[in-house]
Structures are given as structure tokens and as C-alpha cells.
């Protein structure tokens, strides 16, 4: 049998298998009882967008929530508040560290003589510090913190073993400090996304396992029969990441071309099977929550989840197009990259159906603005990524700033935006304090949105020009470098706006902790009317 026919039959069989599997989930072939997937609405839930609530007298006018539901939610929050707070504090620190490193690296690309006195400030190291502070600091701390908050609520169970998560979080952060220190010192494993030396990675594995443990314990003690879609995503992210991280960092397992293949298997999967599900789970939770309307299609949720789970694991190979890896592997990864459009479309349509007719809720809630923009950017960056995997497009964009713009659309425009929104929602519930200066939330939103827009547009244009210049044999290499200069400056401007937004975000958080608003037992009408923050 030829390679082609093996590949073709594997593809067709797997697609048919996936379709049957999703259908069987829906047809309850794998359920033990008929009630298991029955949908139960809480009382007074439908048709009451949060915006409609008159905040001057919230108790009187709001639809009286089911008291049992409220009590379960309050118990869940009380059990997770401490550990979520710890994770969020770490997230803030790493966000600032990563922002500073990222902006420094960006400026160095057009002003190479800036800050050259120290080796650790050189581009090669500061860029790596930026990537690792985002990849193992900000994104997982914010994402895991949000997961630890949402999962007990959705399982209507108190978080079991929160102490393990606290210890795990401490170990994880100790590992990250050690890892960034060694990178700054110049000790690295030499593979992108896997730079931190494997000796330190042992700490990450131990810390990650300790964070995952309470979530498993809580799942085992759950009091709900039906698992809401957010739980699938978060549970799987916590299951996938340790496997990815352990296999990718295990020393002496992969060499040469295999190591490169594994490198991008990890590099792409950590985005799609760790950050993406954590952020998607947050959207699936906060979007319906904030507009007071259920997610419209359980069927689309199934398609979106299993599609992501099935297709994503194979897309990493598109980073190696034209490389010394087998052609069938790259071809399969290109096809699966395009197939990713399906789960993305399922997610998008589902959110659209849920939001339809309730857009006015956006005006009142900054959390919802962050979440909705994040959701839109998920669709945009995923579809862009699918087309970027095609050989014709990849020939131009590979090895250019275009890819960098795409990566930031995903990890900033989508993931970080969603986590910003989540943090704005969660912090008042775990601290019992209101955000003191609501206008700053709006400022943060517009700085972040404008910043990423400038960033993305400049680098996309610059990267494309760079790619076409590099493909033209009649133009020298330096021409492709000079072509990008104005766009790199544009990127620094966008990046600076984003950093400013983060500083405001952090200052606001400190203001909240310092008790600038005090403990608002009866929230002031002016405050809530201004933000609609809930």
C-alpha cells in the first residue's frame, strides 16, 4: 500500500469515527441513565439579562435566584477563594514581568543599540524571558485560577484539597523563578517553548500535579449529574497539559528531526490544548452567566469540544512545512489545521446564538466586553491559523513577523482578553470588595483593544512585506529587514499601549486590595450604574 492510500484511509476512517462518536454522545449511547444529560434550568433564569437589574435595589427587583443554587455557589466560592486569590496575585506579577520583557524585546528590534550592557538584556534572552513569563506565568496562573473558581461552582461542590493546589501553585512559581533566572543567565534547553532546563521542569511537573489533584477530588465528589461544557474543557486541559509537558521535557527521548517534530507538537498543542480550552471554558461560563441566558446548543458544544480534542493534537506539523520531516506528517497536519475550522465555527455559532438579541448587555458590563472581544478573536485567530498552514500561504509567512502577529492575536487578543474579563468578575467574589475605580476598567479595555489592534495590523503588514522580499531572489536579504522597520516601530507603539493597560489593571487591583472602596456591603448606586460590573 502506498503512503498516500494509507494516509487517505486513516483520514477518512477517523473523520467517520469522530462523527459517529459525537452522534453517540448525543444519542446517549454511552450514558448510564436517561436523566444524565437532561437539562435543568434554575428558576427565574431565562430572559433576565443582568443589565435589566436595577442596581439601586438589587434584592427587590432581581429575579429571586433559587436560594439553594445561591447557597451552593456561595459555599463553592468560600472553599476556593483563598487559592484563587493566590493564583491571581501570581498572574498579576507575571503579567507585569512579561509585559516589560516583551516591550523591551520589541524596542530592541528597531533600536538594537538600546540596553546592550547586560547579557541578560540581549534580544535572545529577553524575548525568551517574555515568552516563558507569559507561557508559564501569566496564562496558566490566570487560567488555572479561573478554573479553580469555576469548577467548584459548576459541580456544586466545595473545592476538595485546596491546600494541595496552594502548595502546587507555590512550587510552580518557584520553578518559574528558577527557570527565568536560568534563562537570563544563559542556561537553556535550546528549544522554543521548552527553554527552561529539564531539571527545573521536574518542579513544574510536581506543582502541576498538585494543582490538578484538587480538581480531580472535586470531580469525584460532585453533586451534579450533568457536566457543563466548561468542565469538559477545563478538566481536559488539566489532563492534556501534564502529558504534553512531561513527554516534551523528558531528557534524552527525542533527537534530531524527531526533537524538532516533538518541539512543535508541544509548542502548538500547549496553545490549543491548554490555554485555548481554559479560555474557551471561561467564555462558556461567563458569557451566558453575564447575559442571563443559557448556552443555546448542547449539540454545538459537543461538536466544538470533540472537534478540538480530535483535530488539534495533529496540527503542530505545519510549523515544519518544507522541513526534513516526512511529507505525509506535514500533509496530515495541514489538513487537520483546516479541519479545525469546524470546531471553531461550532463554538462561534453557539456563542452567536446565545448572544443574539442581547447585545445591549455589552454596554453595561466590561467583563462581557473583554469576554466577547476574546471570543471574536478566537474565531479570527483560529481561521487565520488554518489558512496560514496552507503551503501557498506558509511559503510567504513562515519565518516572518506575520507569524508573531498571529501568535499575539491568539494568546493576547483571545486568551488574555478572556482572562482579564474573568479576573474582573471573579475578584469581587473572592475578596468581597468592589473594584474601586470603575472607569479604569474601561480605560484598560480600550488600551488593550487598541494596543493589540495596532500591534496586529502593523506586524501583519510588515511580516507579509518581509516574506515577499525574502522570496524575491533579486532583492538582498537586508532589504527584507529594512522593509519591516516602520512596522516594528508600530508594534512597539501598540505594545506600549498594552503594557500601559496592564499597569492600570495592576494598580486597580492594588487599589482594591488596599481597600480603596472598602467593603461595600450595599454597593453604591453610582458605582454600579457606571460600570454595570457584576
Amino acid at each position, binding site marked *: 500500500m*502506498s*503512503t*498516500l492510500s494509507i*494516509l487517505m484511509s486513516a*483520514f477518512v476512517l477517523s*473523520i467517520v469515527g469522530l462523527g459517529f462518536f459525537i452522534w453517540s454522545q448525543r444519542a446517549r449511547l454511552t450514558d448510564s441513565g436517561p436523566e444524565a444529560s437532561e*437539562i*435543568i*434550568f*434554575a428558576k427565574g*433564569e431565562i430572559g433576565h439579562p*443582568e443589565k435589566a437589574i436595577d*442596581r439601586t435595589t*438589587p*434584592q427587590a427587583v*432581581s429575579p429571586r*435566584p*433559587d436560594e439553594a443554587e*445561591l*447557597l451552593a*455557589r*456561595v459555599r463553592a*466560592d468560600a472553599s476556593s477563594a483563598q487559592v484563587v486569590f493566590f493564583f491571581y496575585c501570581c498572574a498579576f506579577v507575571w503579567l507585569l514581568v512579561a509585559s516589560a520583557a516583551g516591550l523591551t524585546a520589541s524596542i530592541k528590534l528597531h533600536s538594537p543599540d538600546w540596553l546592550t550592557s547586560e547579557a541578560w538584556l540581549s534580544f535572545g534572552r529577553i524575548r525568551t524571558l517574555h515568552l516563558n513569563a507569559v507561557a508559564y506565568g501569566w496564562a496558566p496562573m490566570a487560567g488555572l485560577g479561573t478554573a479553580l473558581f469555576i469548577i467548584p*461552582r*459548576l459541580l456544586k461542590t466545595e473545592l476538595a484539597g485546596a491546600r494541595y493546589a496552594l502548595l502546587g501553585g507555590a512550587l510552580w512559581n518557584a520553578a518559574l523563578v528558577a527557570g527565568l533566572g536560568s534563562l537570563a543567565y544563559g542556561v537553556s534547553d535550546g528549544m522554543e517553548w521548552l527553554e527552561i532546563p529539564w531539571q527545573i521542569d521536574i518542579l513544574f511537573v510536581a506543582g502541576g500535579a498538585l494543582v490538578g489533584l484538587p480538581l480531580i477530588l472535586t470531580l469525584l465528589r460532585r453533586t451534579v449529574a450533568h457536566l*457543563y461544557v466548561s468542565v469538559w474543557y477545563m478538566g481536559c486541559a488539566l489532563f492534556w497539559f501534564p502529558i504534553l509537558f512531561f513527554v516534551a521535557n523528558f531528557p534524552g527521548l527525542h533527537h534530531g528531526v524527531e526533537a524538532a517534530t516533538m518541539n512543535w507538537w508541544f509548542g502548538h498543542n500547549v496553545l490549543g490544548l491548554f490555554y485555548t480550552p481554559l479560555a474557551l471554558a471561561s467564555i462558556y*461560563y461567563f458569557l*451566558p*452567566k453575564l447575559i442571563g441566558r*443559557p*448556552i*443555546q*446548543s*448542547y*449539540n454545538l*458544544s459537543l*461538536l466544538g469540544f470533540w472537534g478540538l480534542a480530535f483535530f488539534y493534537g495533529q496540527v503542530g506539523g505545519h510549523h*515544519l512545512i*518544507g522541513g*526534513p*520531516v*516526512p*511529507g*505525509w*506528517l*506535514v*500533509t496530515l497536519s495541514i*489538513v487537520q489545521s*483546516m*479541519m479545525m*475550522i*469546524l470546531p471553531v465555527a*461550532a463554538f462561534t*455559532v453557539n456563542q452567536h446564538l446565545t448572544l443574539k438579541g442581547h447585545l445591549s448587555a455589552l454596554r453595561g458590563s466590561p467583563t462581557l466586553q473583554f469576554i466577547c472581544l476574546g471570543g471574536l478573536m478566537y474565531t479570527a485567530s483560529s481561521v487565520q491559523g488554518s489558512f496560514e498552514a496552507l503551503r501557498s500561504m506558509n511559503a510567504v509567512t513562515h519565518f516572518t513577523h506575520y507569524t508573531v502577529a498571529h501568535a499575539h492575536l491568539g494568546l493576547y487578543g483571545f486568551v488574555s482578553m478572556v482572562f482579564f474579563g474573568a479576573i474582573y468578575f471573579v475578584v*469581587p467574589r473572592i475578596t*468581597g470588595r*468592589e473594584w474601586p475605580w470603575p472607569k479604569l476598567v474601561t480605560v484598560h479595555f480600550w488600551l488593550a483593544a487598541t494596543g493589540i489592534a495596532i500591534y496586529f495590523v502593523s506586524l501583519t503588514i510588515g511580516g507579509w512585506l518581509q516574506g515577499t522580499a525574502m522570496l524575491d531572489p533579486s532583492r538582498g536579504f537586508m532589504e527584507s529587514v529594512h522593509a519591516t522597520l516602520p512596522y516594528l516601530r508600530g508594534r512597539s507603539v501598540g505594545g506600549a499601549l498594552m503594557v500601559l493597560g496592564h499597569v492600570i489593571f495592576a494598580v486597580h487591583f492594588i487599589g482594591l486590595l488596599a481597600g480603596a472602596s472598602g467593603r*461595600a456591603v*450595599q*454597593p453604591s448606586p453610582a458605582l454600579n450604574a457606571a460600570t454595570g460590573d457584576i
Partner: protein
Amino acid sequence: MSSPEILPQQRRENPDPQERTTPIPWLVLALAIILAAFGVDYISHAKLDTPASWGDGRSHSELAGNKPADGAKADGAAIFASTCAACHQATGQGLPGVFPPLAGSEWVLGKPTTAAAILLHGINGPITVKGQSYQGAMPAFAASLGDAEIAAVLTYVRSQWGNAAAPLSAATVAEVRTQHAGRTGPFSGGDELKALP
């Protein structure tokens, strides 16, 4: 068990979300079919008839590289830089006691046929160059360099760093090649080379 205090933030929010069972829109199903059809089409047009070890999208002609066309002039300087300079150094001075110099070397400036023979088959044994003795370990290039290339690099070496000996033609190298056609190992040192015609 004592109930924790209910915060106003918790009281004012909506209940936790649930799901409805709206069917999958037919447009999404159509998209699924279109994408699957694309996948089948893309795979069926993929060029997968080359061995997997060649790499993605590589053809034989790409991997074979650019062999100089017949009649094209070989670049002696380039061959020297890529093949010889690692030991004999770009200055042609070698490394004292380890790699003999080429500048002013009696072997380089002497009989062109002997120099060509050294390049073709290499040396493994003692050799004296400019009065200093070396333990020769010169590799053979009969298999990797053609007659024109050996002629070009020898011509280059014989004209650099103060050397001023006559150029070599590819025909001379070809002659030496046939002369030593039966040879399987390197020359055993300076004594054997001196005995060459």
C-alpha cells in the same frame, strides 16, 4: 455546618449557566462536509511518492544540489576555503608541528604530478616539509573532487602566499588519476612520494 456569608456580588449575579438543545444548524453541517471533502482532495493531490526520509516537499533535484555543468570553470579559491583551509589555514601557513604549510612548500611548488597524486590519494606517514618533519594524515579526494576541481585548487595553491608555480590542467590530473588507478590506500609518506616519476 455553618454557612459562609453571602456576598452582595454573589447575590446579584445570575444563576450558573445551563445549556439548551438547539440542533446544529445545517450550515455548520454543510461546513463539516465541505471541510472533509477538502481534506480528501488535499491528501489525494499531495506529492507523497518520494521516500519519507527525504523530507517534506523535497524533490531529487533539490537534494542533489547544483553540480557544475560540463565546461564550467571550477573555483579553486572556493574549494580551498571549504576543503583545505580548516587544516592548512586561510594563510596557507598550516599549524606548526601539526599541519604542514603550503606557502613555500617544496611539495606544492615541485612536480605538479606529485602534488596531484597527493590530493587524489592522501598521505599516511612521515613527511618533511620546509625542513620540518610532520606525521602526515592527508585525506584522499579522488572520490569527492573531479579532475577540473583538483586542477583548479592546485593552481590556486601554487599561485598564492608568494607561491609562483605554473598552473595545472585538468588533463594532467586525469593522467595522474589513471596512472594510480589501481591504488587503494594513501601514500606512506615523503619517501614513497619522492620515488614517484
